[in-house]
């Protein structure tokens, strides 16, 4: 697992992808931070984080698109799948490498909190709640992207597919509100990623929320393993 993680991490920073992702993170978060707090003299960071939610929805797939798609195309999956490594470890290694890069981009959000604290009193509960929410939703986006990347040989297809999946995940609550059948609507609401996310942004650290996000990540990783397994049996 560590071998795969190390290789993936070094691949991110040998190609421009890692740098581009982090730069995009810094650029957007910096802009939102200035626009929604500094320029209007507010310490409410929820909008800044919400902005990043949408940015990551679109940009995390750029990070995850090559994870398996490229292996499928270059036939290097033959090396990984014939090595004495369990599939779950392989998938976990891939996930963690992409998640590390994601967190490198995300961690800057905490620095903004520190910067603000020099000029005003800051509600750290809200900042940390938002930060946790973004970190957790990031894990969901990374695992979803990894899953889609396993399905195809084309990085382009993987990227577009993951963006579509992320948007669908984020919009579950919207979809649920327009469905007239009560129990389907309720069920969808129950798995709404955005509702859980919103809970955190009010500064409430909910354990059930954490478990929910981790479960979604595990489901996507499990699906990824199944796709790799299925290829063996096809």
């Amino acid at each position, binding site marked *: 697992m*560590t*071998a*795969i993680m*190390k*290789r993936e991490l*070094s*691949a991110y920073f*040998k*190609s421009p992808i890692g740098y581009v992702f982090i730069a995009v993170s810094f650029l957007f978060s910096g802009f939102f931070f200035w626009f929604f707090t500094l320029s209007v003299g507010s310490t409410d960071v929820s909008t800044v984080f919400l902005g990043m939610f949408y940015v990551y929805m679109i940009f995390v797939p750029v990070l995850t698109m090559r994870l398996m798609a490229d292996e499928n195309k*270059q*036939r*290097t*999956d*033959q*090396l*990984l*799948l*014939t*090595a*004495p*490594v*369990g599939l779950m470890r392989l998938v976990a290694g891939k996930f963690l490498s992409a998640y590390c890069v994601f967190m490198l981009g995300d961690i800057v959000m905490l620095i903004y909190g520190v910067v603000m604290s020099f000029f005003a009193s800051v509600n750290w509960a809200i900042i940390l709640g938002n930060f946790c929410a973004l970190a957790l939703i990031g894990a969901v986006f990374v695992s979803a992207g990894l899953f889609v990347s396993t399905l195809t040989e084309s990085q382009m297809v993987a990227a577009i597919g993951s963006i579509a999946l992320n948007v669908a995940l984020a919009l579950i609550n919207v979809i649920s509100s327009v469905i007239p059948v009560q129990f389907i609507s309720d069920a969808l609401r129950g798995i709404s990623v955005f509702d859980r996310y919103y809970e955190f942004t009010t500064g409430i650290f909910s354990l059930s929320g954490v478990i929910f996000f981790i479960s979604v990540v595990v489901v996507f990783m499990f699906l990824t393993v199944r796709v790799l397994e299925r*290829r*063996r*049996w*096809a």
Partner: protein
Amino acid sequence: MIEVRHLTKSYGPKKAVNDISFTAEEGQVLGFLGPNGAGKSTTMNILTGYISSTEGQAFINGVDILEDPIKAKSFIGYLPEQPPLYFDMTVDEYLSFVYSLKKCKLPKKSHLNEICDIVKLGDVRGRLIKNLSKGYKQRVGFAQALVGNPKVLILDEPTVGLDPKQIIEIRTLIKRLGKNHTVILSSHILPEVQAVCDRIVVINKGRIVANDNADTLARNLSADHKLVLHIEGGSDEIKKILTSIGDVERVFVGRQVDERVYEYHVEAKEGVDVRRDIFKKLAARNYPILLMRSNELSLEEVFLKLTTGDEYGGAEKLETKFDRMEKGEESK
């Protein structure tokens, strides 16, 4: 040791591999020979656990690849048809990645140095894999298979893309490794298999058509009472002369070798040597024999015979054509 029992792989109604069984002992190089699309790579992919079989079992050192894939895979070094290389890594980075991926316990530096010496990668170790030539890429792929000193080596067309000197080096290397490893190598190049392998499994359309040592395979299928001759002169007359020899049973006129020179396939009674009679008869009529050899099949011919069922490579068909021409049927 590798044991394969009744292996079948179906893709829908098509059977890529159909009921294959064979065993490769330790210290043996087994050649997997067959035309393109015969099912060689599919079998190798099953053996290495990359894909699964539809039916049947494969054991690596007694471990079923489906029951305990991780253990079975730890015995195997695999060089797929297309070497699985990461182009953005240097040779050294790549090999140390493979080293940790395989959870290798041997002392890292000396082990990797040894492998690089074996496959002669010394001077390119610091270079990016994407900038290497095809031959070097193939060698890096080979090196990757050797990491961890696995007991079983599965090599899918290991000499593709190498120059003749490298091919000889790799063959020597495979022979050397074969002494204390189990090696399976696939190829459609016959001299390669003949030069390197102790045992040959010929596979065609997913089925095993022969499984024997290299020498026996050629010997069993050859027959020294069959002769091939090149004789200068009119083919009809020569055929008559040859047929008139007492022990000769059949004579085919084969292709035209040169102007007024034809190839003849002579089949005598089994165990009878008719070479002297043929010489005397033809000499008496002043027909020079330009070539005479017993029809000991080369592996190439054995291969064609096994996979197409045609021993004379079209000569028989030509014969019937001549017959019909003589009878005037063809002119219609």
